[in-house]
């Protein structure tokens, strides 16, 4: 099976992605991760204003069959959460890079992204 891995994203080995958008960044989980988890039924993430840190837990995603911790690819302040996932967590399955996004973060250090996996390296990791 081949998974969608958009070239403009950066990834953590634990399958979270980050997309930089002018000083803030969006965070979610990859197409591969949502497929591995199966039907997602619950997503738990921090509140707006909370601080999160690179490589540290920021939440939990649960599918019918498994529970998985979420790790933050970046450090910064949460400026928005995708509250649509509270009622429709399946959006993560349907559109992991679009409507299934999880957080927007005001980055402490935009250079931190350079240390993450690029799309090609992440593709090599999961194949």
């Amino acid at each position, binding site marked *: 099976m081949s998974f969608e891995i958009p070239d403009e994203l950066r990834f953590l080995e634990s399958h979270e992605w980050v997309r930089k958008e002018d000083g803030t960044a969006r965070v979610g989980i990859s197409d591969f991760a949502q497929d591995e988890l*199966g*039907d997602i*039924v*619950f997503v*738990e993430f921090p509140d707006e204003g909370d601080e999160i840190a690179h490589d540290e837990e920021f939440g*939990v995603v*649960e599918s*019918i*069959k498994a*529970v998985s911790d979420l790790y933050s690819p970046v450090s910064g302040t949460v400026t928005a959460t995708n509250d649509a996932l*509270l009622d429709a967590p399946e959006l993560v399955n349907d559109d992991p890079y679009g409507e299934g996004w999880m957080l927007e973060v005001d980055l402490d250090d935009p250079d931190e992204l350079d240390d993450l996996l690029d799309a090609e390296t992440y593709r090599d990791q999961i194949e």
Partner: protein
Amino acid sequence: MALREPPLAEVHDARGATTTEFGGWDMPVEFDSIRTEHESVRESAGKFDVSHMGEITVSGPDAAELLGRLTTNDVSALAHGKAQYAMITDTEGTILDDTVIYRLPETHDANFLFIPNAGHDEEMEDRWTAHRDEWGLDATVENRTDAYAMFAVQGPDAVDLVASAADDADEPLADLGRFSATDATVADSDCLAARTGYTGEDGLELIVPWSEAEAVWEAFDCQPCGLGARDTLRIEAGFLLSGQDFDHDENPRNPFEADVGFAVDLDTEFVGRDALARVAESGPDERFVGFELETRGVPRHGYEITDSDGETIGTVTSGTMSPTLSTPIGMGYVPTEYAEPGSEIAVRVRGEPKEARTRALPFLER
């Protein structure tokens, strides 16, 4: 030790199934998605390869007595072609396993067949033969787990689906009563077809010669389903899972605690009867209950159940987000005073107490 494989391991692999270890077997857990498979069974039909379930036949003049003394229900009440649910208990009345016992149609050489859970077949074979010898009974016990595949076809359309693929059933499958079994021919194979199942839906279970499993499996054009959907379906139906909702070593329970007292006939003599008569007299201290979470979260096996003050009162044995009800549901044991449906409890989900309320099982009335 190498895992045991069902006869259709390669067929499932080619179909894209993911597998998991269960009771010493490598079994399909998911073909497409648990939700898709679950919904197929609730709305139309799905087929499950449950060849990991054991098959043990018991024959001979004392077959009924041997089964009667080792299981909690009244085997002597079974007519040919009828089945019953029963528990297997030790002298303390603690559940070793649960099972369905069939008194086979008269066409069969063997008199009885019973179905131990995955990984329990050898233990049950040993138990049966040891007690037979100790009691000097004349019965032949054969573990035929590797001779028979077992499939479950379940859902509102399941019986029609099997009936249209079968010919020469001794009794028309559509007329077969619940917990009844008959000989049927499917895809030229001689099968035992029983109106039993583990999903809360109507349907049939088929016991099929191992070597003919593929032809029978392919005779039903419906959604293949794995153990993942089997688990969400059986939780909605409030059915116990051996090794999880009771476990002789990890979570010892008697049938009255496990809410399956209906499978215990104290008018028969069986191993554990006297201990269970005492429990029936005094009532169990704890009871198996269903509950529904009233706040977001998913209850899982092993999570603590607390009272509304946060004091631990029990443990979740099974839980899931119900695909049919779209609510988080679970089951577990609580002190009897909390067993009344509607009692306020809480479940500690990753340290956070989530409000919950007990409710009567099954979650889903069909």
